[in-house]
């Protein structure tokens, strides 16, 4: 997730978009790629996501994650599905040790395309959305503020625990504990740190609980408000409804295909 001050991302057209729109698009487009038996569809969606990533100023890390995930998974599934899929009937290449089947390759493309579509949508949501805005948007559509608190606190408390761990580690190494060396040695050094980290975290949790109580966390009768706001522009609505309509059309086409009225793929 981006920080509240990452203006170079948050003030792009994608960054400004309502988080619910981005989450909805990721979900509906991903499901569309999943249910429609069109092997190339996921790649079209992924290509469109490249444009969104460029608009959101995250093209480089986006390309890195897509290719670093896409290439190995494609090769792995090409081997498994292409050579050994039970669907294989039409063989397009004989490699000696096994034959490459067209049906398996198409199935592999469908799986990889679908995975990339979900990955791309969720990555863009994650990398162009400030978590505070996402939680505010989820609260707006009815998520409980307590669930919102859990989401935010979990994400924010991890760096704090890491800092504490680092502090304890430094204190331990100042007293002669070796914290360097091989992976096994580092793991051994890590074990004695766990006790102090867990115990101090429990003490901290009590004080944090007190803070929350004195800040009205337990209030039930009040409507929760937020300093962070989300706009829901006509463009947001159009994109979200567009994605939903796409999904509905995909469902209809899949059903028609299933009953044999039309043939897809």
């Amino acid at each position, binding site marked *: 997730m981006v920080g509240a001050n990452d203006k170079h991302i948050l003030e792009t057209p994608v960054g400004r978009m309502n988080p619910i729109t981005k989450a909805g698009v990721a979900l509906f487009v991903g499901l569309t790629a999943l249910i429609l038996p069109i092997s190339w569809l996921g790649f079209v969606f992924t290509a469109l996501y490249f444009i969104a990533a460029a608009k959101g100023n995250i093209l480089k890390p986006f390309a890195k994650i897509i290719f670093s995930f896409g290439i190995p998974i494609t090769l792995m599934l090409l081997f498994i599905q292409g050579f050994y899929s039970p669907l294989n009937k039409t063989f397009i290449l004989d490699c000696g040790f096994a034959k490459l089947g067209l049906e398996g390759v198409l199935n592999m493309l469908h799986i990889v395309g679908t995975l990339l579509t979900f990955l791309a949508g969720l990555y863009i949501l994650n990398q162009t959305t400030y978590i505070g805005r996402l939680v505010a948007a989820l609260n707006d559509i009815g998520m409980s503020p307590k669930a919102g608190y859990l989401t935010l606190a979990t994400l924010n408390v991890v760096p704090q625990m890491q800092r504490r761990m680092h502090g304890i580690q430094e204190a331990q190494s100042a007293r002669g504990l070796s914290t360097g060396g091989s992976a096994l040695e580092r793991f051994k050094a890590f074990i004695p740190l766990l006790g102090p980290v867990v115990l101090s975290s429990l003490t901290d949790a009590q004080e944090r609980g*007190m803070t929350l109580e004195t800040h009205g966390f337990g209030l039930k009768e009040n409507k929760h408000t937020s300093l962070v706001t989300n706009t829901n522009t006509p463009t947001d609505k159009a994109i979200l409804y567009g994605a939903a309509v796409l999904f509905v059309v995909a469902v209809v086409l899949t059903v028609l295909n299933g009953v044999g009225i039309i043939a897809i793929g």
Partner: protein
Amino acid sequence: MAEEVIRVEDFSFKYRQTKKYALKHLDFAIKKGEFVCVIGQNGSGKSTLASALVGLVPQYFVGNLHGRILIEGHDTQHTSISELSTMIGLVFQNPFNQLSYTAGTVAEELAYGLCNHGVPREEMVERVDRIARIMRIDHIIDKNPLELSGGQVQRVALGSSLIMEPEIVVLDECTTQLDPMGSEEIFDIVKNLNADGMTVVMADHDMERVARCADCVIVLDRGEIVAQGSPNEVFSQPDLREHGVEPPDFLKIALALKEAGVKVDRLPVTEEPTIELVKEAIHS
């Protein structure tokens, strides 16, 4: 005559898991605008008293309780902690444990309590701006609270209590973990708030500061009030050390001069009268 904002009536409390009472038969009142310092050695009951004043005892820390505490006429046992937070704020030692861990910016951290109380956003923005100026954190309002120094975080913590617009603030050794500069910054702000009419109850170990600023000092020892009064009255008591309280250095200087034969009419506990006394001693 100023109205009473805190009334503690024969208040005793024992934590469920302990055998001894942490607070025993406390009985005192604090008037609006007073600066009250609570002193005593570790384990004397200062933090329990601070928790009791804001309702955490007995609503968060359960145990055996006798007597009652009234905050602006509201019994802390029968008023929710959230409701009390609009009358009395609490700031404690570790600044980082007073963050909500839900905020990406100082502004959001300050606004956290207001969000829970359902304050409309427009009012929230106005209050955040005002408190940020008072706390001198308006220049870091867009920063992540987890990236700030201890002193800055403590000012954020104090701000997030004061944004609820309480009449009273309780500071439980809130400068202990800060460097001298950070500590003085917090203290300056508290002094200004007190000068503007806010009631302050502060648990502190810095006796010079207590002597300088308190209208009233309460000394706790093993949960009991063993001395109470103005700084001069309290610090002049000869048995203070027996209760684990070291008097201010200025008083020690004055006592040394007195022992050396210098005529001391009234024992000073702060800097300026001590300097005057030393000057007189030199001239005589």
